[in-house]
């Protein structure tokens, strides 16, 4: 499954994720057509576009929720077009920010420990006592501190406030030492002050990692994103940093619904 793609050349080390002519057909309706993008290591890459442009679809292709009709997805030099969801997660490509993605009846520490536990390679060891996991406590604590949850290590996740849950999610995700994080509308349905907190958190954890996100909130996009890809009708309409993209007339026409400069 993880065989090298035919004709694979070693990628310039600066590209962590690449799609080549990715296409998705839904019974004759092409939602994504021929999309090729490059995500640079260590960057925050945002995906925007008008409704129905295919952002969600594209995202689902990356996270293996959907199978591409054509094209390839290359992650860290490997073709992962046909990989299993758990398989890509093990290679450091983690999807986050699904609604309330925590384990509600585990404590915050245990939540993080579940993520850390994987690297010990003993998760199938049903004959070992659970005590053996205590060696991870310190690291878990450190991770919690990072997102400001240090004092809540023993609190059950259900009992955490909304923003804390999000923070816990992020802690769990970074515990896996992801190389690439995929964020699906991370600020959807949040009030402006929460948006600020989350933006801050993302900026804090990005450090050395790569993030791909779908986002409607242009404020967030403009503050966070290094590169923005604009999709329209399943095709790439424009790509570049915020200034380039937001002044592109085609984007303004299709996305902002105006030709005045923003």
């Amino acid at each position: 499954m993880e065989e090298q793609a035919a004709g694979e050349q070693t990628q310039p080390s600066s590209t962590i994720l690449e799609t080549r002519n990715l296409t998705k057909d839904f019974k004759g309706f092409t939602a994504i057509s021929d999309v090729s993008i490059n995500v640079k290591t260590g960057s925050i890459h945002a995906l925007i576009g008008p409704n129905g442009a295919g952002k969600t679809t594209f995202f689902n292709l990356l996270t293996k929720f959907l199978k591409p009709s054509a094209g390839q997805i290359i992650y860290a030099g490997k073709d992962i077009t046909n990989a299993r969801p758990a398989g890509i997660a093990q290679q450091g490509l983690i999807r986050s920010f699904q609604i309330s993605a925590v384990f509600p009846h585990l404590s915050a520490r245990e939540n993080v420990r579940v993520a850390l536990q994987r690297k010990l390679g003993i998760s199938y060891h049903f004959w070992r006592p659970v005590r053996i996991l205590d060696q991870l406590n310190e690291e878990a604590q450190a991770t919690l501190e990072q997102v400001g949850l240090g004092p809540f290590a023993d609190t059950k996740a259900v009992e955490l406030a909304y923003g804390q849950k999000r923070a816990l999610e992020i802690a769990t995700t970074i515990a896996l030492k992801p190389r690439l994080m995929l964020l699906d509308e991370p600020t959807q349905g949040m009030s402006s002050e929460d948006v600020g907190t989350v933006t801050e958190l993302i900026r804090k954890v990005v450090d050395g990692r790569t993030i791909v996100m779908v986002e409607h909130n242009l404020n967030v996009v403009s503050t966070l994103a290094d590169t923005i890809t604009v999709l329209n009708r399943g095709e790439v309409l424009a790509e570049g940093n915020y200034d380039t993209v937001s002044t592109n007339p085609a984007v303004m026409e299709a996305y902002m619904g105006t030709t005045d400069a923003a």
Partner: protein
Amino acid sequence: MQPDQRPEMLKIENLHAWYGESHILHGLDLTLREGEVITLLGRNGSGRTTTLKSILGLVSKRTGSIKIHGTEIINMPTHRIAHVGKLGYCPEERGIFASLNVDENLELPPVVADGGMSADEIYKMFPNLEERRKSQGSKLSGGEQQMLAIARILRTGANLLLLDEITEGLAPVILKSLDDVIRKLRDRGFTIILVEQNFRFAAPLADRHYVIEHGRVVEQIEAADLEAKKEQLNRHLSV
């Protein structure tokens, strides 16, 4: 037209609502006259959606009084309320039925009063939907779903519309057309409650704004006073 001359459409007094054990609304009061457009503003979790749901009887327990055209509906089962109150509901997250196609979604809500729009009129208003008439609800993009969610309550003849976060997840270009739609509806005399996060969208549309905090109305601002009370509003919405 003077607002106070219009008859009262909806009158909520001392409304309390619970989800299971948790007490969400703590004595909310609100009055709405025929043909008015109001917004409910507030931070996440302040209870705006819950207010709409309480009107519809979708919370586990509620007390107080909710009158529509003078008829008390607080103890009515949900399915009667739409008929009695002649109201249409557009929920948070759209609530498009995945297993029904666009046509079926549109036809689903029963007609509650005369004077609803016909399917043709509606498709004229939302041309994108017409193209996808036979598509399953689940296959629509977020924006298409939002259009459909609004479109389907226009057919029923309801003249009191409860719209929850209809701008959520919509690109600016769609917001524009949505703005048009709401204006058209207002001109046709619909009474509308808008729950909005997107104040910029809602501000020019509404006659009055209610700010809700912890399940109570903490501020009531007429459109005319908006400029003057900007300061106050900002304090409520983002601290």
